[in-house]
């Protein structure tokens, strides 16, 4: 993967976890969150190689304030490798947020799960490109990808393009993408119980983001959501 010239002001690796996927320890190592919401405007390119029996857990958190172009390439190169990739993005104003994900299953028996949930308001533009490649030899691969989006305004724009390239025949792969709005009926229901409209929106947005919100970032995500409403 050629990275070319890029500036990477973000120290991601310390908060990402790459661990042995051993029987005793289980798989529960995660809650790693490269927060890429502060620092200089610009792009992030990262690539990871996940070897036999290793597990990589990564969560990208993009909070409002800046445009981001995030490119992640993950190669599963050893049998039994496992990847949990999550993303949370909140954008407003005229921000541009782009995710380009490449999940490359090169060997048999690996698992990858991706979940990206994001909310776009103002006249923000989000683009999510999620590519999964399963090599001819990579039998028994399990690769899943989901990308869900909520638009808060007429001007906000989301484009989501999943791409599956599967060259092996004994695999389990799926992808799903949705773009929707806040659930008006649920908002009305909450309001009839006395929850003010803005607070009802915040509750709904936080619950939408909950599956991708790292524990350590809960407070800042909540603050950002309140700001966005």
């Amino acid at each position: 993967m050629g990275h070319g010239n890029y500036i990477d002001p973000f120290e991601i690796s310390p908060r990402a976890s790459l661990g042995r996927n051993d029987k005793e320890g289980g798989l529960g190592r995660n809650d790693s969150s490269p927060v890429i919401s502060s620092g200089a405007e610009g792009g992030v390119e990262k690539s990871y190689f996940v070897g036999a029996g290793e597990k990589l857990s990564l969560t990208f958190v993009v909070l409002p304030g800046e445009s981001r172009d995030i490119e992640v390439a993950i190669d599963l190169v050893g049998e039994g490798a496992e990847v949990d990739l999550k993303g949370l993005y909140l954008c407003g104003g005229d921000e541009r947020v782009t995710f380009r994900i490449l999940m490359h299953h090169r060997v048999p028996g690996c698992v990858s799960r991706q979940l990206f949930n994001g909310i776009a308001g103002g006249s923000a533009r989000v683009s999510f490109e999620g590519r999964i490649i399963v090599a001819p030899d990579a039998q028994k691969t399990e690769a899943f990808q989901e990308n869900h989006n909520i638009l808060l305004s007429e001007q906000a724009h989301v484009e989501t393009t999943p791409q599956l390239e599967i060259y092996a025949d004994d695999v389990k792969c799926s992808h799903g993408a949705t773009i929707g709005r806040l659930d008006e009926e649920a908002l009305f229901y909450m309001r009839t119980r006395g929850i003010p409209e803005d607070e009802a929106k915040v509750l709904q947005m936080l619950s939408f983001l909950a599956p991708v919100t790292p524990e350590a970032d809960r407070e800042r995500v909540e603050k950002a959501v309140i700001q966005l409403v």
Partner: protein
Amino acid sequence: MDNLLEIKNLHARIGNREILKGIDLTIGRGEIHAVMGPNGAGKSTLNAVLTGRADYEVTEGTIVYDGKDLLSMSPEERSWAGIFLSFQYPVEIPGVTITAFMKAAVQARRKAQGLPEMKTPEFLKLLKEKMAFVQMKPEFAKREVNVGFSGGEKKRNEIFQMALLDPTLSILDETDSGLDVDALKIVADGVNALRSPEKSAIIITHYQKLLEYVQPDVVHVLKDGRIVCTGGREVIDAIEQKGFDQF
């Protein structure tokens, strides 16, 4: 003032279609009123206007609730003022537990009333007490609101919320509902338990079934956007015998 709710010459439409064509309805404190009518009579619209749904436009008339102009109040302000709507089809709120939902509701009302936040132990005690009151299993406190609930469980959850929020005016929308007997009893028990000289309820329904379990003080027949008959229990019997065509 003895009347809790006064509806005068209420006209409402959705789009260009006029649905309510001049409704007059007065509900005294402590009274339970039933509003019955065939499909298309305007029951859902009346309910929607009372609870503040945005898609209906009131073109004429007034609604005074507890001395206040109801139509100028937002849905949440109506709730703070003591109005509760029991939904016919309660809405699912994935990711929000019943505890979090009710806590947000209680704290928002206290804030609106200028009261300090309720302390968590006090709130949990109240929650537990009201769940027991409607015979809701304690584990529901941690369930996401209405997600995966059966029809009866959703109804019970509505009545639980009603009991916890302790409204002055309860509006029960059972418009076309195919409620089974168990669900009917849950609703009826909840309404009967909240009966007091200060509290009123409106039961909007197509069927007389629920009214076997809750005794209304006044029964109205709504037809083609107007109240065409007001009376007591005998109105229900008349509907049972001859349907709505007689009106």
